[in-house]
């Protein structure tokens, strides 16, 4: 008999007992929501919009007629050509990719890369593993940068006064600027550039200053990703910057810092943090993270203790910590008025001090915080013995550039005759107290060097085409100072030139060739045989030993601080925190569709930058979703309409300027801090980036770019649709992400087996229950798992199972304990697998195409109404815990999708892959219906043929916006899918097959056909900065993946369905401090799980009460 599994039926208590929210829409229980629950794809995603039946038939008749014409015209194959090179090209073997070491420059911290090129065409970026601190990891922005190279909206021709000019004219223009400036020793000449770490540019700039002493060299970046040097000056009297060593830190206090993303060198920090976080056996140590923040960052989501506090109160907070850890000084005065539970501060300080003796504590402050906060934090770190252990200080070259304020003053004085704007985009991203358009009018000649004809270029008299970094010769430094090369992968597609050429030409250098310039710089630094060392530099992708020098620092006597009284925040005096976006950065990547469509890791909103407001503020503003009352009176004020978030639009006024934008209620924010992500609202970014989101730069002032107080919000009657990809944000007490506290794990390493149906099910395999299996020694588990991978007998099922007789059996393990949810895997997968973008409208309908998604769940432990005096929890949590889980196709051994496919388009292969034959697929979408993980994606349109605003026009739509240029980014090893075809994660089957083929070629006439472990890395695995993903052969019990799966935290998602997913997860651990007032003896999602599944075991009230009291303690603050 076919075994039939029922999902656990709802208990009576569930049906009649207290209910809990899981999304804003469900809370209001609208009809629309109920309808959506019953559907597979969201409504609209599987129906045509605005077309009725009659119209449909008319259209179809017309298209059949057209089809007939097409048939008569003949369907024979067209003549194809093979075009070999005229002259053989060194190293190039057609069909095989080449890899070159290079780097992506970004402000002061370049990221070393290996660029994959196919016949001279870069298609994919990987991290350069030779650079140890990053270990071959990259982030979403680096992954997406290759798309920018082929952006059809990039500027293609240089212009002077609006007329196109040749590159020779550009050279003449630059030479003339230099010659003219020489007479007045540079007076009247000004430069405005972005930050750069390039040693060659630094050399050119210093030459420039020597040759043109009267010229102004200004640098401007709208966002800060390095701590202010003034802080180090104040604390140590030296120009140094900190390099954190998270791997050595056991106790970490993060003060408003997003060190996973918005600090220069964050890749290293994330990687090192994961090293301290990873626990492979019960005796392993695990770090503990305290996060204090106003916004909700990924750091906050990983925190063991998280405190919501306004950014403007961070000074008082660090002072309060300094008072406890350093002592003396005027810290107590500075901390006055801080409304944080003293117990929290005491216990946190005590914990930091306890680890201080071993030098294992660390305090990190966000770069946007003012200098004084950093200075105090440095002193705390000194007191904790962190310096030299968990934090190194390196000497950095002094920054002698003028700032934007000084440049503006010079221009207003009328002293600037020629302004050269190198990169950046000041017309868009200058703070609101500057009017760049007005400034530019006072300068007779403005030359803009830029990659796009953007807001700034539109104001400039001359525009010079910039080369992409993948087209340029250059050099740069990583965050720790290591010099890395920037090599061209392809000749400039549109005659772009590099910044180095612009400067060299204005300087009148003998050679303006950037290769020569870089060669001279590097060989001078490297010494030895010039050509040899330069070649080595290019080969390694870095100059060994060129990192900034580590220096000893000793604290100066603390100078007294003037205590500023804390600003009392309220609904009428809000704090505005400007964050730089996790995707488009400061707006420079706004025209990158991959990044725009990637959902924000926390809010899950794509294609927008809504203002984030806390649940409490939302309530006070009257924009919280309405619950019972409205439903009873039948007034449906759904804030989600069929999965589309209908956000209220509000007007924020601060510094006398107002911006209108949608409001999104985000749990976990400081109560009266609103978050404004920068980088959107571009008007001249290109087809993708124009008019996406709002521009918040006008609200900024140059004095304090991180945050500002004194804001007000007025809610308007307008609504705005937000493309939110995860409306559903609770696990509903289910066992999706399985979590435990570290102490529980130490007592019961196999805690994951106590969850769900499996825990109570009879043995499915052999004679072992899940619990018995988890208690076996790891070697035994690895053996059993390896043996099972080839058995076709699946739990006694009568269903015919595929045979697993391949040489390998592929499997994956994802460590939820180290995953920080950074989205790098999402974009890496998109780049590797030719995944299209679909545009905001289609994301709203639920048609996004990402093969891997990051699920983000909130839990506040308040499943049970009992804990709240019987009242029903219909509140959005103010202080939730976050559980993150990447989900791609789980490659089930007994895949439910396969049995329903009518055309055998999705079938198993002999190595355990659930394969997709696109050319067989007829698009019934039965497979997606039957997939319990919802990981299959359907091509509702020809995304690859038409721009996102043209898809509804079908064959009538213009294809001009998808020119050949866009096709160049495609990976030639992966099929580009057409309309009507289902697709999904394949474990990067192209990489598997290539590795197998290479191994077989090597084997030749022998049987060494097994691919060595570690040869194949899936795209998501390769990019992952925290090494959470392990992939390999599970038939080999010694492979890394088998070792990972043999760990006792290993579990299958929805394992009780007996579909045997090949991807399994390692349970998440939290490491809270029992001395803390907000200590929870179980992760909050566990509490929800227990109260749903084991209500009788739940201790009466106490946790809820503790939580409630915590909520009172912290909730009323800020």
């Amino acid at each position, binding site marked *: 008999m076919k075994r039939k599994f029922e999902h656990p039926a709802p208990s009576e208590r569930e049906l009649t007992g207290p209910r809990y929210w899981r999304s804003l829409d469900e809370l209001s229980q609208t009809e629309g929501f109920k309808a959506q629950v019953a559907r597979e794809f969201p409504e609209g995603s599987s129906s045509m919009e605005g077309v009725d039946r009659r119209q449909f038939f008319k259209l179809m008749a017309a298209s059949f007629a057209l089809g007939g014409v097409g048939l008569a015209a003949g369907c024979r194959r067209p003549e194809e050509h093979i075009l070999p090179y005229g002259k053989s090209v060194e190293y190039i073997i057609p069909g095989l990719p080449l890899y070159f070491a290079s780097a992506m420059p970004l402000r002061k911290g370049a990221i070393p890369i290996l660029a994959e090129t196919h016949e001279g065409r870069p298609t994919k970026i990987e991290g350069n593993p030779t650079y140890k601190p990053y270990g071959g990891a990259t982030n979403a922005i680096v992954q997406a940068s290759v798309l920018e190279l082929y952006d059809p909206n990039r500027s293609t021709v240089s212009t002077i006064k609006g007329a196109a000019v040749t590159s020779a004219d550009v050279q003449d223009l630059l030479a003339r600027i230099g010659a003219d400036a020489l007479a007045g020793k540079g007076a009247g000449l000004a430069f405005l550039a972005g930050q750069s770490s390039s040693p060659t540019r630094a050399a050119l700039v210093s030459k420039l200053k020597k040759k043109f002493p009267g010229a102004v060299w200004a640098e401007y970046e709208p966002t800060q990703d390095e701590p202010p040097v003034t802080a180090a000056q104040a604390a140590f009297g030296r120009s140094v910057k900190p390099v954190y060593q998270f791997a050595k830190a056991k106790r970490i206090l993060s003060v408003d810092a997003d060190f996973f993303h918005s600090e220069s060198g964050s890749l290293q920090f994330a990687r090192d943090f994961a090293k301290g976080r990873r626990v492979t056996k019960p005796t392993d140590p695990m770090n503990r993270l305290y996060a204090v923040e106003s916004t909700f960052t990924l750091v906050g989501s990983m925190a063991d203790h998280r405190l919501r506090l306004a950014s403007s109160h961070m000074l008082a907070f660090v002072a309060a910590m300094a008072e406890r850890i350093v002592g003396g000084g005027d810290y107590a005065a500075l901390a006055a008025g801080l409304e944080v539970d003293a117990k929290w501060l005491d216990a946190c300080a005590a914990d930091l001090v306890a680890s201080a003796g071993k030098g294992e504590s660390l305090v990190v402050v966000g770069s946007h915080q003012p200098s004084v906060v950093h200075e105090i934090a440095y002193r705390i770190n000194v007191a904790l013995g962190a310096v030299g252990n968990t934090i190194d200080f390196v000497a950095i070259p002094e920054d002698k550039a003028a700032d934007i304020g000084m440049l503006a003053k010079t221009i207003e004085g009328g002293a600037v005759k020629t302004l050269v704007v190198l990169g950046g985009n000041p017309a868009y991203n200058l703070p609101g107290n500057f009017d760049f358009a007005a400034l530019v009018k006072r300068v007779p000649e403005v030359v803009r060097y830029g990659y796009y004809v953007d807001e700034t270029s539109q104001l400039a008299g001359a525009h010079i085409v910039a080369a992409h970094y993948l087209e340029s010769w250059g050099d740069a430094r990583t965050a720790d100072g290591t010099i890395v090369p920037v090599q061209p992968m392809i000749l400039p597609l549109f005659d772009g030139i590099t910044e180095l050429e612009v400067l060299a030409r204005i300087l009148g250098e003998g050679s303006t060739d950037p290769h020569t310039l870089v060669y001279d710089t590097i060989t001078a630094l490297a010494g030895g045989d010039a050509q040899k060392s330069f070649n080595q530099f290019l080969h390694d992708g870095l100059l060994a030993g060129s990192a900034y020098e580590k220096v000893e620092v000793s604290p100066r006597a603390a100078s007294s601080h003037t205590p500023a009284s804390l600003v009392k925040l309220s609904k009428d005096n809000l704090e505005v925190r400007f964050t730089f976006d996790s995707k488009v950065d400061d707006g420079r990547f706004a025209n990158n569709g991959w990044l725009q469509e990637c959902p924000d890791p926390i809010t899950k909103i794509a294609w927008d930058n809504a203002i984030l407001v806390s649940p409490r503020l939302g309530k006070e503003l009257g924009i919280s979703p309405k619950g019972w009352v409205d439903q009873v009176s039948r007034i449906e004020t759904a804030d989600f309409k069929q999965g589309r978030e209908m956000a209220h639009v509000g007007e924020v006024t601060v510094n006398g300027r107002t911006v209108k934008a949608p409001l999104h209620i985000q749990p976990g924010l400081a109560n009266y801090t609103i978050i404004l992500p920068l980088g959107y609202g571009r008007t001249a970014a290109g087809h993708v980036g124009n008019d996406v989101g709002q521009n918040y730069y006008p609200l900024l002032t140059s004095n304090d770019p991180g945050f500002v107080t004194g804001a007000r919000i007025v809610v308007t009657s307008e609504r705005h649709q937000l493309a939110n990809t995860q409306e559903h944000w609770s696990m509903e007490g289910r066992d999706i992400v399985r979590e435990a506290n570290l102490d529980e794990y130490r007592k019961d390493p196999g805690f994951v087996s106590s969850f769900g149906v499996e825990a109570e099910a009879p043995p499915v395999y052999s004679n072992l229950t899940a619990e018995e299996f988890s208690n076996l020694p790891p070697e035994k588990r690895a053996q059993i798992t390896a043996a099972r991978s080839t058995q076709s007998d699946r739990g006694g099922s009568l269903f015919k199972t595929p045979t697993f007789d391949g040489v390998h059996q592929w499997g994956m393990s994802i460590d939820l304990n180290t995953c920080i949810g950074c989205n790098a895997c999402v974009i890496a997968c998109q780049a590797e697998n030719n995944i299209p973008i679909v545009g905001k409208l289609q994301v709203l309908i639920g048609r996004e195409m990402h093969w891997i998604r990051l699920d983000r769940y909130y839990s506040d432990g308040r499943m049970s109404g009992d804990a709240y005096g019987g009242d029903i929890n219909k509140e959005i949590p103010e202080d939730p815990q976050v559980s993150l889980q990447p989900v791609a196709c789980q490659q089930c051994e007994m895949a439910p999708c396969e049995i329903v496919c009518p055309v055998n388009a999705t079938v198993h292969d002999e190595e355990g892959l659930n394969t997709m034959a696109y050319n067989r697929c007829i698009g019934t979408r039965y497979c997606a219906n039957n997939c319990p993980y919802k990981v299959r994606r359907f091509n509702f349109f020809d995304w690859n043929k038409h721009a996102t605003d043209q898809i509804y026009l079908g064959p009538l739509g213009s294809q001009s916006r998808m020119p050949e240029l866009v096709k160049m980014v495609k990976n030639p090893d992966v099929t580009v899918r057409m309309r009507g075809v289902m697709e999904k994660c394949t474990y990067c089957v192209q990489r598997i097959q290539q590795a197998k083929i290479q191994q077989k*070629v090597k084997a030749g006439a022998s049987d060494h056909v097994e691919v060595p472990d570690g040869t194949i890395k899936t795209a998501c695995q390769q990019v992952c900065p925290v090494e959470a993903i392990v992939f390999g052969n599970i038939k080999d019990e010694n492979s890394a993946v088998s070792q990972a799966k043999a760990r006792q935290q290993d579990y299958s998602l929805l394992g009780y369905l007996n579909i045997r997913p090949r991807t399994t997860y390692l349970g998440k651990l939290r490491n809270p401090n029992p001395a803390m007032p907000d200590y929870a003896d179980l992760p909050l999602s566990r509490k929800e799980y227990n109260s749903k599944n084991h209500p009788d075991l739940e201790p009466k009230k106490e946790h809820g009460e503790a939580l409630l009291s915590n909520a009172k303690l912290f909730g009323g603050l800020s």
Partner: protein
Amino acid sequence: MSKLFPKSVNKLPLQILVYLFLVGGLATAGITYYATPSYANVGYAPVQPVPFSHALHAGQLGLDCRYCHSNVEKSGFSNVPTSQTCMNCHNQIKTDSPLLAPVRESYASGDPVPWVKIHIAPDYVYFNHSVHIARGVSCVYCHGKINEMDVVHQDKSLTMSFCLECHRAPQKFIRDPKLVTNLDWKDPEGEKHRIEQGEKFVHDWNVKPPQSCSGCHR
């Protein structure tokens, strides 16, 4: 009954016959057009920009395939030689031949000679030459006796069933990898011995040609 069935019904049997005949004819024509090897282009022998003769170079002169198709052992794609490869010899032999003018021009300018592609696998098929060569599948099984062709034509259907024929019974087609480019090779000890050897190779080298979708479709 004439009330129920009008007179025109009398013609119905004939009409049905004619209709069936037409439909049958169309179906036959369609199948012939789309599903027979003519769709798979067997015999396709387009005119090339340079009338290069494999019979002369590979047959009479005995050049090894890999002299020109030099990357066939390394890459999935068996390269057509660059004009530079041609010029290795033809800067000394037949230096003035008008037939070779496109090659000389290409070598001088760097622009490619537009050879017409004969063996075309659909874009969703990822055939890999190197692995077949390394594991002892001779060129001849897919390309025919190129060394006897003055004008190269497509010799085999190259359909999926053609591929599977070998992937399901590799022992019939596998030989010592050293002999793969010898298109005339016949086992001196006879056909039966060749297959026995094939069976031995399949066993000894752990040859498991993929028969699932992922082997060729990605």
